């Protein structure tokens, strides 16, 4: 039996696959991943096409609709389930008559864009800090690690509530316009400030285990600069843990964003946002439960979907760490 005869058979039987291809293969067969991915996609799409709803419903998220309210009955929506009707598919807000569907889809826009931007910022900071800290070690690592620990030790929501007005004042006095134009960047700053150490720590650990590996030594021997080693040799091998952390960070950032708004340090009315919808609905929960249910359920569904998808991605990339 010659080698020539064996070769074709072996390539047909054991196909050479990259780790990413293997992960993709596993994801493809994971129903949870598909469903949760679908839910996320759905919310992203409605956020993107929000203005289309405005056209279909012939109103804007901030317009009042006195005609949909019962003036004598405490200005509650006319009709059942919070005023659900052919003109207002999800009903209207008590007292103002603003269309809940429109506030919901525009709220998806605000909530998701803040959470996703914060994730991006936190990831970039976290990855850079983690790489530097892990690769250089020594004093740099000590300083950066202590920083991470300090940030992690803060009660983040409380601190965010305290720092938001201060930051806002600083930004406003430096010329930014009042209102959401300042508030939203502040929220992104605050959320990402408390989010980056999680990523940085994971990246740092991975880098430490990788920096003495042969391919790094080889590159070093060839005279590569340190920056080249960090960003060109090590970073490309880290995308799996980064992806997993990001996937699990997004839902926590979404809840943080909603929590901040709910507690009054978030998006300013009349801009709609799921957190502010929840906040506004709380006093009415016993008389108009639909109003609380809609943003509450959406938030629950989206966070659950992100979490499940995050789990699936982790399982796919690292099957050994199964639940």
């Amino acid at each position, binding site marked *: 039996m010659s080698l020539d005869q064996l070769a074709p058979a072996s390539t047909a039987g054991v196909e050479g696959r990259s780790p990413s291809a293997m992960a993709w293969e596993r994801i493809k067969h994971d129903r949870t991943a598909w469903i949760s991915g679908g839910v996320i996609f759905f919310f992203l799409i409605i956020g993107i096409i929000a203005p289309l709803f405005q056209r279909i419903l012939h109103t804007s998220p901030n317009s*009042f609709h006195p005609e949909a309210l019962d*003036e004598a*009955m405490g*200005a509650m929506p006319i009709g059942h389930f919070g005023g659900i009707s052919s003109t207002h598919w999800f009903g209207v807000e008590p007292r103002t008559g603003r269309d809940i569907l429109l506030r919901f889809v525009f709220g998806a826009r605000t909530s998701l864009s803040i959470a996703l931007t914060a994730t991006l910022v936190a990831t970039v900071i976290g990855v850079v800090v983690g790489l530097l800290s892990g690769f250089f070690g020594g004093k740099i690592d000590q300083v950066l690690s202590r920083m991470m620990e300090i940030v992690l030790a803060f009660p983040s929501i409380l601190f965010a509530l305290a720092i938001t007005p201060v930051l806002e004042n600083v930004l406003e006095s430096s010329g930014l316009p009042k209102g959401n134009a300042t508030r939203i960047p502040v929220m992104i700053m605050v959320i990402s400030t408390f989010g980056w150490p999680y990523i940085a720590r994971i990246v740092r650990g991975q880098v430490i285990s990788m920096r003495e590996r042969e391919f790094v030594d080889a590159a070093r021997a060839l005279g590569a600069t340190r920056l080249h080693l960090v960003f060109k040799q090590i970073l490309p091998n880290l995308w799996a843990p980064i992806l997993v952390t990001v996937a699990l960070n997004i839902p926590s950032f979404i809840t943080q964003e909603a929590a901040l708004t709910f507690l009054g340090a978030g998006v300013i009315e009349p801009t709609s946002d799921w957190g502010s919808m929840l906040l506004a609905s*709380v006093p009415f929960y016993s*008389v108009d439960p639909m109003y609380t249910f809609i943003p509450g359920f959406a938030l629950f569904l989206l966070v659950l979907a992100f979490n499940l998808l995050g789990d699936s991605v982790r399982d796919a990339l690292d099957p050994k760490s199964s639940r």
Partner: protein
Amino acid sequence: MSLSKKAIALVGTLALGATAFVMVPSSQAATAVNGPAPAIAGAVKGGTLTILEQGDFEHIDPARNYVGGTLDFYRFFIRTLTQYRTYNGKTELVPDVAADLGTTKDGGSTWVFKLRTNLKYEDGSKITCADLKYGTMRSYNDAILDGGTTYAHDFLKNPTNFKGPYTEPNGDLKSVVCSPKGDSITYMLSQPVPYFPYVTTFGSFSPVPKAKDTKQNYDSHPVSSGPYKIESYNRGKNMTLVRNTNWDPATDPARWNYPDKIVVKFGYEQNALEQQLVSDSADVQTAMSTDTGVITNLPKVLANPSAYKSRFFSFVSPYARYLAINLDTVKDVNVRKAIQCAIDLRTILLAAGGTAAGTYSNSLIPSSIKNGYRNFDICGRDVHTKPEAQIAAARGYLKQAKDVKKDLILAYRDKGVEPQRAEAAQQALEAVGFTVTMMKLPRAGYYTRIGQRDAGVVQPDVIQTSWGYDWAASSGIVYALLDGRTMTASDSHSNYSRQNVPALQALFAKADMITNPAASDAALGDIDQQAIQDYAAVMPVYFETSNFITGSKLGGVQVDGGYGTISPLAAFVKK
């Protein structure tokens, strides 16, 4: 007369006298001079009355209290020269520490009150005329005793510029004089004040024993002269009142004493408390609240009125909610008229809770002040049915305007439904072509900020505000809200419109001369109408309706006409 800044800072917390207001008490028949107060039908003695509040009382020191609900409540242990009594839905002024409603021989500049001589404090010591005078004198130390009304300073003569007994221990307020026997007291005023016996219902006309005056600390335990005394008071947590055995009902026409004990608890949350009271849960059946009305749970009550009938109280309060239009910044009257026309009263009232939460108004004077109220029309429109006509009218005025100003700043307070109301106003203004910048201001210091006129401070053009009058007469409203003389270069005081039109000021000068209360109401009513209709200085929106619910085992709860609040004064616990 101009109200001082202190009074104004508390606007919105105080409201007086909605019903049965009769002026010139000097001629009033002494129907209810002596005690005891008439019995409440079905009332029984005993039990514990519980009062649940969101926040602690701001002040219970009589010299410092200026909050409607607390002015009503603290009568359980504070007596004043005169007082309101509400019984069977009728409110009248009765002598309290005084034995009559005062007499004047010079048109209201000098007032003489006879005094009851058999009254005692909680420790059994006698209440004297000197104590009554001292109670007024200590209110002059308002740097230490902040809060409270300023009427004593505003009205009493003060030739020696007395600054209060803490500053001047040997000083004297020469305009308050006790008779040698101590059975009458005389007040000398710097101007005629025909309604002075109403002013003396405030705490700066209450007896305070000099030996027991603990200055700032008096706020935590004022010496009781009423039917109950303070057993314990933990600020922010709770207060317990027990019977004051030295109080004699026969000397008091204004107070009842049914429960054995009154427990006040602080720190409740609006929505949770509201729900507990509406559902009448077991622990609140003998409870009520004086600061927590039914707001978001109102639809439940309205949907089933018969179930709540015996314990639901709905009444028009004297709070006028209105938008002041700044004459300093919106100079063209046609622009101001366009603002008036643009405002959609319906969306604003809906944002506040609909017709159960308020009644539309066209004037700053409520219709209950019969001689002052004028049923005129603003912008000639029917607010309910013709929003298009309203928009067209507003645009018409904008076309006529010479000094066009389309960018407006709308100031509002971040409290309750006020942001939603401001948003409703914003939408209505933008519908006719204005661009509205929202100026959201914190609750604390709101009234000070919107009154600022200093150059360099951003001036709002439209100001969402409210006013609860201190006595039910045009003079309690129009002078404070529209008189240009209240303003200084840096502070509009409560004249938030910065009204100082010469033609209107000429009318004010004439109105000053009128001493007849009915004629004064009418003259000031004309000013109100002209300021709104011709000069578009304000846009009235609605008079608020208060809705309260009590536990099912309480009886005798009343709507107090004197303070426009729900009152526990005559409450009893059902057996």
